[in-house]
């Protein structure tokens, strides 16, 4: 194989909603913190603008609630958290992801079992 590298940023695009929802399901969080936690969880290439845009879109779509928390040093932080609609979206997306990855894993396993290099 020539360049077997997968464009992770392309992959991420499809599942960023899911990733953001999952992070927020752990704990309410503000924009920059969401980016940090995604990176800590191994999604190194996640773009700041993508996460911020995703948060705003999910918020506009009514999946998140938001509230401002003042901080002594630095700017006020707008925290986002899942509302019932967001939790439902997370459940559905998680389910879809589970069956998608299962299918893909199955394919990959079959392939690695079949012909090795």
């Amino acid at each position, binding site marked *: 194989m020539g360049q077997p590298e997968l464009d992770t940023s392309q992959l991420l695009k499809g599942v960023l909603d899911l990733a953001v929802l999952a992070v927020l399901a752990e704990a309410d969080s503000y924009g920059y913190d969401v980016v940090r936690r995604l990176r800590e969880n191994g999604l190194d290439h996640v773009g700041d603008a993508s996460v*911020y845009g995703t948060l705003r879109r999910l918020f506009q779509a009514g999946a998140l609630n938001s509230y401002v928390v003042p901080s002594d040093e630095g*700017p006020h932080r707008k925290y986002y958290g899942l509302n019932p609609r967001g939790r439902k979206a997370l459940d559905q997306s998680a389910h879809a992801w589970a069956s998608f990855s299962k299918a893909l894993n199955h394919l990959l396993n079959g392939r690695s079992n079949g012909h090795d290099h």
Partner: protein
Amino acid sequence: MTTDDQASDVARYAAAVRAAVSDLPRHQSEALLEDLEDHLREIAAEAGAPLTERLGPPEQYAQELRAAYGAESGKVQREPALGYLQRALGSVTSSAWYQQLRAFLPELRPAWWVLRAYLVVLILTAALSPGYNLHPIPNPFSSRGLLETLATIGAVLFSIRLGRRSHPLPPGRRRLAIGANVVIALLALPVLASMGTFPSFAMVESGAPEQSSDFASPFSLGGVTNVFPYSNDGKPLTDVLLYDQEGRPLTLARDPGRMTDYPIGADGQPITNAYPLNQRRLDGTPDLQPRVAIPPWPAATLPASPTASPTPSPAR
């Protein structure tokens, strides 16, 4: 990077991002970029490096943002005129000076906290005591002014406390608070406007709207617009010159319903204190000389009102 550098870096970067999405419908870009500055500030504080180093060029950032938000780019339909207006507005709101102004305005908040307290006391004073002569700064040596001063100090302390505490309000209460502030500002307008003109109103409350400066300062005496002097044997006198205790000519306030012909003195100036005045009604009807019943001397005599009735009764 200093904090100031960071602030202007954030303002510049945010302005460039806003400019790059200015083709989006306004409601969409608003929704997308609502707290962009706060977000960028967070990054700037964390990174300690210029934002372009950390995030790439603002145009690219805007592109990524737009893609993640799922906003349609380019193919925006709207009314041409409105679109032009929105673009013009967008170019203003994305300009650097506007961003700097916006960044600076919050620093003026404490000034408003003080001002609004002052205005509230002013409004309350005006509302509770109509006719009271409002001063911009009450005289603390009068009991009235002292009360006002103390009320203002108390209100300022309370207002500052309120302002410092109420930052993260829930949306509903925030709207309420903004509304209350706007109401204070609007109510203060007429109070401030009346403050400048009130004293002069209080002084001139006679029926004499204008009096040329040639005349001695007019005085108003319960509707008296002419004086008919009589000698003690009951004869009407003419061209009697009247003076006050200071020796100033006694001039009556002008009767808006009558024309007055003043005799002209040797110096060419009208003589305004020669009584009775030669008056004509504006509607043409002649003024009647009052008929006066002269009581036996030494009882004081007062001429009756010349307009009231042709047969007045003598005053006792």
